[in-house]
């Protein structure tokens, strides 16, 4: 349904746009209906930029983003409006997602003006109430309120309700849980589960590994703008191959293990791996590509083992010696 192929994003920085920041490097993956794909990475890894490019809030510098075969990058006014009927987003900060001086109902009204100018009055109100109901809220308790009178979880679920008024097929959820209290998180997570069951494709952007594990079918691990590992969630979490993924997993505190033990084990493993690179060991020098991935198990792909995006590969010995 959604397909990204070799997507790059380069930001121009500096006074005259002289400097560049390569935020996203050659990212490829796809999202199928009824599937939750998690984009996992630390801050600055380019995960949110990818979400914004999928929603066309940012333009990709190169590469293609396709939704049912149409290139999203080239969409203009009318085409873009039609695309937004099927693809919507929910963002990190629920309080900044609403215009603070208006009641929350206005976000539905904006949608109505744009997509359903003929639907007015009771029929529309009923549709809104239905949508609000379907995200587990009581319309009477949330409608007609100002954003600061509601909790973050309620606001996020209202945004999902807003998206559901359209013919929604793809939802980009950009860190939608990270600003919520632990008690309201589960409501929003369960709501994502419901949407998935209804056949929606969900692109779940997060820095939280446990959340990625909890909700998603596939994960894409990003580091400095490139994909270092991707595959089915179970495979990646059970058998992480890339050093970065392993470090990421090891850095999650665990209930039954002490930090020193984890550290020691990581030390041993790193020493055993030495200066190896799974990618360059399996792909010949001529076919190898900086941003390439190699399949280590069905659907489970791993990239070059270098740490920084511009570093040299640890596995490649000097050509003269080889």
């Amino acid at each position, binding site marked *: 349904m959604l397909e990204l192929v070799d997507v790059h994003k380069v930001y121009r920085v500096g006074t005259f746009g002289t400097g560049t920041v390569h935020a996203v490097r050659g990212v490829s993956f796809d999202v199928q209906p009824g599937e939750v794909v998690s984009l996992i990475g630390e801050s600055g890894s380019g995960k949110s930029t990818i979400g914004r490019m999928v929603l066309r809030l940012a333009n990709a510098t190169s590469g293609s983003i396709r939704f049912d075969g149409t290139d999203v990058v080239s969409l203009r006014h009318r085409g873009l409006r039609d695309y937004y009927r099927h693809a919507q987003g929910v963002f990190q900060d629920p309080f*900044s997602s609403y215009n603070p001086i208006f009641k929350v109902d206005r976000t539905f009204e904006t949608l109505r003006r744009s997509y359903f100018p003929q639907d007015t009055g009771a029929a529309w109100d009923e549709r809104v109430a239905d949508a609000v109901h379907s995200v587990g809220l*009581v319309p009477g308790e949330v409608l007609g309120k100002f954003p600061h009178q509601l909790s973050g979880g309620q606001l996020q679920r209202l945004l999902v309700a807003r998206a559901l008024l359209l013919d929604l097929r793809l939802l980009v959820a950009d860190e939608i849980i990270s600003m919520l209290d632990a008690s309201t998180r589960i409501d929003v997570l369960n709501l994502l589960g419901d949407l998935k069951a209804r056949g929606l494709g969900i692109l779940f952007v997060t820095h939280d590994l446990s959340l990625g594990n909890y909700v998603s079918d596939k994960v894409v691990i990003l580091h400095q703008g490139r994909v270092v590992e991707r595959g089915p969630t179970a495979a990646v979490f059970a058998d992480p191959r890339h050093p970065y993924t392993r470090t990421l997993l090891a850095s999650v505190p665990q209930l039954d293990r002490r930090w020193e033990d984890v550290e020691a084990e990581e030390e041993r493993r790193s020493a055993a791996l030495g200066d190896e690179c799974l990618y360059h060991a399996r792909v010949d020098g001529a076919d190898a590509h900086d941003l390439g991935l190699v399949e280590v198990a069905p659907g489970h792909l791993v990239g070059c083992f270098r740490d920084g995006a511009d570093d040299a590969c640890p596995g490649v010995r000097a050509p003269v010696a080889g």
Partner: protein
Amino acid sequence: MTVPSPGPATTVADDAPDAGAALDVPDARPGRLPGRRHEALYFALRNPKVVGAAVVILGLALLGLVGPLFADHGPNDYAGPTMQPPSGEFWFGTTMFGQDVWVQFVAGLRSTFLVGVLGSVVAGVIGMTIGFVAGFRGGWVDELLTMLTNVVLVIPGFVVLIVINTYLGVRSVPMQALYIGLFSWPWVARAVRAQTFSLRAREFVDLARLSGVPTRTIIVREVAPNMYSYLFMTFVLLFGGAILTAASLDFIGLGPTNAVSLGLMMNQAVQWSALHLGMWWWFVPPGLGITLLVGALYVMNVGLDEVFNPKLREM
């Protein structure tokens, strides 16, 4: 309407981003929560600075509007004996030529308000348009418009106005207001651009985009309403600035040729040595009128600051 009892799901967030809006404002109808605009009005009507200044400004405006209607002769007509001090017949006395100072004063107030309104609207519209477009579009559009703004900003506006008025000659009050407006917008554009920049990055703007709303509508419906208080104060300041500039131009003899204004009255009083002849009634009313009006506008600005910014409220 009744207040829905807060069930377990309606935990109101304690970290609401705008604590000012959550202030407990009494409202006549129970169960109805006061909006931002109601709240601003509530505090405005209880702020002595705003109320006092508004009374002065509205009083003077009323005087300028109604006063000339009751005069039985024009402001420049020779209505009576010359150099009369204030009396029952001529409230503000007469000039060197026997013109009625009271009639000149109310007519001058009228043109002063006209200059203020037209000048501030011209400057406000240009400044806001350029500020919104530059701030929202960004990129090269922003660079170009910012360059234009800076160029106009560094031009010494008053000197240019003197040159324009000398060479082109200003025939009427609206023309004067137009020229003043054309040179006083840059700081508005800069301030609006800066505010727009910060609002553009908010997620509700992204959500409006995801609703297929065109850019112009986003600016008008999502960005501008967040700046209403600021835009309102901008107009207040522009209004006072335009009045002062017009009075200065009039005073140095570059005012409209076919009208009466408070600045022109002072110009004539000085020209005919009213000060040395002890004709205080000739120059005190226009001077006091300008001072009162502009002073009230600035006091109102300070008061509105307190109304819109909860941190400045003294309560």
